[in-house]
Each structure stands twice: as structure tokens, then as C-alpha cells.
């Protein structure tokens, strides 16, 4: 991938599309600052909060959703008071204290997703959400509530960059970034 | 000054400059090695305590000294590549490792051979030789780590960190081995104790040490040139070289 000049500002919702292997995940990880190798040029990021939801759920199997989210809050410097409502939003309030290893893959992804609602409820305007295929393994009304949350966060001044194969049920301005395959 | 520092980073410039340096330094190094060896082997007087086997120090001591210095060169190049993200420093670090390892190996082998006539066994747990063995492991660690990473840029950074950690530890290792050695072994023949050496024995040793430093530099530059070519295979300046040749 060469010659990419991308400027994402507050209030932007960017959808990255493209066949597998076209570098979507690498781009997201570069924006998050996780991968700098083989990168010529520069990435500047000016936001107060960064949330990156990757393919890997980033949760510990031997901890319960609540314990995972307590640590997630602490790692962002928040105090963990909104965990229950976040779990509520992803429909896991019933299973808050079950070890994640006993949850299904879909439920584990939703634990990861709950971190997005934590960030949303933390109501910090200048946030950058980097979401890698956030809609996979989520049921229909989960998708709509997630899309609505993203829309609200963008209107509030945050920025969202996501990759997805599905089309988004969104009515707000959307910037599409199409990564061509090996053209 | 800053442009010089920046120019140092460009492979074609570095390739040309190293070519000119080598044209002068390489013959000089070989001359010094030959003169120093002949002087030390054939003209220096015999050591009355150890006999002629002492002449091995004309190869063992320079190799040990430069092998240790080589590690510091590698670590500093690594630090420069980490801090200023300079590709050339990473190339220097990567190329310094095998050269340093080879000299450490030479130091170990010559030390072992020296042990036979002096102490009757090939392997002597002498402080200096033991420290050299550990230095050899440090070198191998860096080389192995570099090979283990597929992504060579990550390999360079990881090796820079490892060589810096190694550099901090080397004085600690040397002092602890000295303490360990002095505890178990009353200092009989301290191998590298040059204090009692007569000047006519000592001068060839200085020349050989200088020659080995130049050898290290030449080998490093040659290694870097080959690495620069390999990395720049698809670039224009390398293709021009191929065309011109």
C-alpha cells in the first residue's frame, strides 16, 4: 500500500472497504500506533482517548466479563462504575460473573464490544474509535444499536474508523476508503 | 555538520565512501598484520617463565580486546538506530555481530591452545577466557535473535535492545567472573598481565592490537557493503553498479 494521505478529523466516520489482504487491518493497526514497521511517512494522532477493537478479543479467558472490564476501565484511567450498563447494552448483564472461557465466541466478542459502550458512556468528546469488523457475530438489533451509538459518538465530536464487509445502516455522512486488491 | 550526519544515512554515498576507505585501509591492515606477526613470532625475545608459547598472546590478546570493543560498537550502533531511527546504524549493528563473534571465537580458540603448554589442559577456567566465552554467548544471542524474526526491521530493533542490555551487563559479568576466579584460584599466571613484559615484547603487541582494530573496521565495512547491496537490490544505484560492472 503506497501513497496514502488520509486526514481524519472530529465528526468523521470512515469506512474502510476492500477484499481480504488489502491491508485494512494493517491500516487500522497503524492508525492505532500498534504497527510502525515498514511504514514510511508519518502518522500524527491528536485525541484524548483511543479505542481499538481488533480481531482478537483482548479479554482473558480465565476472568469474568466484569473482571475484564474493570481492568479495561483502569487501563484507560476511568473508575469502573458504568460496567453494568455497558454489559446491559451488549446483552451480557446476566453473564457478568461467568468465566469468559464458558462464553461462546460471539459473547466473548460482545465483552470486547462492551468496552466501546464504556468509552461512549464515559462521554469524552475527543475519542478515536478504531473498529475491526465490529459487526461480525452480532445479531440484527445489536448491529442497529451499535451503529446508532457510533453515530451519536461521531455527532458528539468523536471520530470512528471501521472496517466491515456489511453495508452500514447509517444515515450520517460516511467517508469510504476503498483499498483495491492487487490492482 | 548535520548534513554530513544525514548523508551518512544514504546507502549509495556510504557504499562509495566505504569503498575509498577500504582501498587505503585494507592493504594497510594486511601489512600491519604481517609485520606485527613476524615481529612478535620471530623477533621478540622469549618469555623466561612461559617459554615460546607466550607468543600466542600476539593473537589472543588483540582478538580479545577487539572482540570486546566490537560488542560496544554493535550496541552503540543499535542505540543510534533506535533513537534516531537511522537505517545505516542498524546495518552497522547487524554487520558488526558476526565480525565480533568471529574474533571472540578466535580469542577462545587461541586461549584454549595457549592453555595446553602452560597448564597441561586445553580448557582453562581462567577469568579472561571465561569472560570471553560469555561474550561469545552474548554475540550468538544477538545473531540468533536477528535470524528468529521474519520481519527484518523488527529484528533490528529487537537486537538493538538486546545489545544495549548486554552492554550494560558486560562490566558486571567481567567483574563477577574476576571475583569468582580470584576466589577459587590464587592468581598464578594472570594471562594478560603485561606489566612484567619487556618493551621489545610489548611493542609488537601494540601493533597487533592496532592491526586487529583495523581488521575489525575493514570486515565491518565489507559486511555493510554486501548488506547494502542486498537490501537495495531493486534500487537504481545498485542496478547501475551491475550495469557498470
Amino acid at each position, binding site marked *: 500500500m503506497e501513497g496514502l494521505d488520509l486526514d481524519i478529523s472530529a465528526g468523521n466516520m470512515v469506512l474502510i472497504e476492500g477484499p481480504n489482504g488489502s491491508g485494512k487491518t494493517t491500516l487500522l493497526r497503524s492508525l492505532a500506533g500498534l504497527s510502525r514497521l515498514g511504514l514510511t511517512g508519518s502518522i500524527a494522532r491528536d485525541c484524548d482517548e483511543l479505542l481499538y477493537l481488533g480481531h482478537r478479543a483482548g479479554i482473558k479467558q480465565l476472568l469474568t466479563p466484569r473482571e475484564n472490564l474493570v*481492568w479495561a476501565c483502569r487501563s484507560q484511567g476511568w473508575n469502573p462504575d458504568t460496567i453494568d450498563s455497558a454489559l446491559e447494552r451488549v446483552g451480557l448483564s446476566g453473564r457478568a460473573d461467568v*468465566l469468559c472461557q464458558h462464553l461462546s465466541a460471539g459473547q466473548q466478542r460482545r465483552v470486547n464490544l462492551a468496552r466501546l459502550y464504556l468509552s461512549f458512556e464515559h462521554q469524552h468528546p475527543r475519542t478515536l474509535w478504531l473498529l475491526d469488523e465490529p459487526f461480525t457475530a452480532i445479531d440484527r438489533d445489536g448491529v442497529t444499536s451499535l451503529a446508532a451509538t457510533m453515530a451519536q459518538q461521531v455527532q458528539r465530536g468523536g471520530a470512528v474508523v471501521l472496517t466491515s464487509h456489511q453495508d452500514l445502516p447509517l444515515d450520517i455522512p460516511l467517508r469510504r476508503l476503498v483499498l483495491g486488491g492487487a490492482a | 555538520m548535520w548534513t554530513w550526519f544525514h548523508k551518512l544515512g544514504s546507502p549509495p554515498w556510504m557504499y562509495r565512501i566505504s569503498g575509498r576507505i577500504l582501498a587505503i585501509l585494507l592493504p594497510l591492515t594486511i601489512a600491519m598484520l604481517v609485520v606485527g606477526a613476524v615481529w612478535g613470532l620471530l623477533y621478540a625475545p622469549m618469555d623466561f617463565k612461559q617459554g615460546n608459547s607466550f607468543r600466542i598472546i600476539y593473537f589472543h590478546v588483540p582478538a580479545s580486546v577487539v572482540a570486546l570493543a566490537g560488542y560496544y560498537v554493535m550496541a552503540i550502533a543499535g542505540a543510534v538506530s533506535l533513537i534516531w531511527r537511522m537505517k545505516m546504524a542498524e546495518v552497522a549493528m547487524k554487520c558488526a555481530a558476526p565480525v565480533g563473534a568471529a574474533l571472540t571465537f578466535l580469542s577462545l580458540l587461541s586461549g584454549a591452545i595457549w592453555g595446553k603448554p602452560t597448564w597441561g589442559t586445553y580448557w582453562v577456567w581462567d577469568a579472561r577466557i571465561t569472560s570471553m566465552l560469555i561474550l561469545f554467548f552474548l554475540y550468538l544471542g544477538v545473531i540468533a535473535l536477528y535470524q528468529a524474526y521474519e520481519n527484518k526491521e523488527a529484528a533490528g530493533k529487537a537486537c538493538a535492545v538486546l545489545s544495549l542490555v548486554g552492554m550494560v551487563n558486560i562490566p558486571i559479568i567481567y567483574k563477577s567472573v574476576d571475583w569468582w576466579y580470584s576466589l577459587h584460584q590464587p592468581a598464578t599466571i594472570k594471562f594478560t598481565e603485561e606489566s612484567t613484559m619487556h618493551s621489545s615484547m610489548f611493542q609488537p603487541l601494540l601493533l597487533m592490537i592496532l592491526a586487529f582494530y583495523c581488521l575489525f573496521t575493514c570486515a565491518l565495512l565489507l559486511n555493510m557493503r554486501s548488506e547494502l547491496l542486498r537490501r537495495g537490490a531493486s534500487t537504481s544505484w545498485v542496478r547501475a553498479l551491475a550495469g557498470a560492472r
Partner: protein
Amino acid sequence: MSASDVSVGAFLGASLKRQLLLAYRRPVDTINPLLFFLLVVTLFPLGIGPDPSQLAEFAPGILWIVALLASLMAAEGMFRQDYEDGSLEQLLLSPQPLYLASLTYTAAHWLVTGLPLTLLSPLFATMLQLPVAALPVLMMSMLLGTAILSLVGSIGAALTVSLKRGGMLISLIIVPLYIPVLIFAAGAVRFAAGGFDPQPQLLLLAGMLSLAVALAPFAISAGLRISVDAG
């Protein structure tokens, strides 16, 4: 303490609690090094012979060599789990200082591996006929030494976590850095067993520990960033 200090302290506390909770729920990580220690210690009398005086003479060296190997084994898988499930990425993305987080992770690792070794070392020592007078010094040297081994071990773990066959490589990288600890720690125990004053060695170990606590986290953080980046 300003607000951010409170949040850093809370984060470090939460990380320590999380690591210990994980260790509690996966006791095999704690028991393995101890079993390894017991297993290898029993090999020495079988190899050297049961004669107490001979064993006693080698006991300081044996105990410390086995402790070194046990902590090397424990260090290998230190970040592996976090790396594979993606929580290492989240740690790197967190605004909290990675230097302190690495220190906390290593401290938790030491509490799970080094401390149990220290507490059980008198048991292994008596199996090797180490004079009782040397036991307190043994424990003191273990307390200091295993902490250094954990810190240095986690540097190796951080640098090799993204590599598929990191096992052999980590020992090549770390064992040379373990050697000063082995020399002074085993030396301290040998001095104590021989009735000499082991204090200089113990003080040197303490010195090395403070150096390791101060500098190792830099290397650990750099190693983790490189490994996640390369992964």
C-alpha cells in the same frame, strides 16, 4: 496526589490483582517451577552419590543452578498468553505508563514463581545436606536473586514473545545475563555454609537488584512494543 496519579495507582493495583487472580485460577504456572526444582534436585544425589559431605559441598551451587533453570523456564511463557489473546495490545494502547505496567507484570510473575521458590528453598537445601546455619542466607539470596532473574527473564520473554519457537532462543539470550547472579548468590550461600561472612555478596545482589528494577522495565517495554508490532 493529582487525579492522574490516583488513576495510575489504581491501574497498577488492578493489573497486579488481575495477574495474581489469573495465576490463582491457573495453578499449574505456579506449581510447575516448584516441581521442576524438586525433580532436578533429586537428580543430583542420584548422579553425584548420596554421600552427605559431598552433597553438602556442592549444595550451594546445585541449588542456585536449579533455581536459575526454573526461573528461566517460568520466564519463557510470561507474556505468551497475553500476546495470543490480544490483551498485550490493549496494554500497549493504554495511556498508562508502560514502564510501570511492565514492572507490575514482572512483580506479579515473581510473586508467583520466585517467592514460592524462596520459601521452599530450605526444604530443597536440607535434601542436599546444606548446613542449617546457611539456610537464612540461602533464603535471603533467593529472595534477592530470583527477583533479578524475573526482571532479566522478562526482558528475554518480551523480546521473544512473538516468535514461534522462542524457547531455545530465550535461554541463549538470558543465561549469559544470569551468570553474575549465579556467581554472587551461590557464593553467598557457600560462604555462609563455610562459616564466612556472606554479607558482601548479599549487598552486591541487592545492588544488582536495584539496577535491574530501574533499567529492566525500559527494555521490557521496548521489547513488548517491538513484539506486538512484529506480530
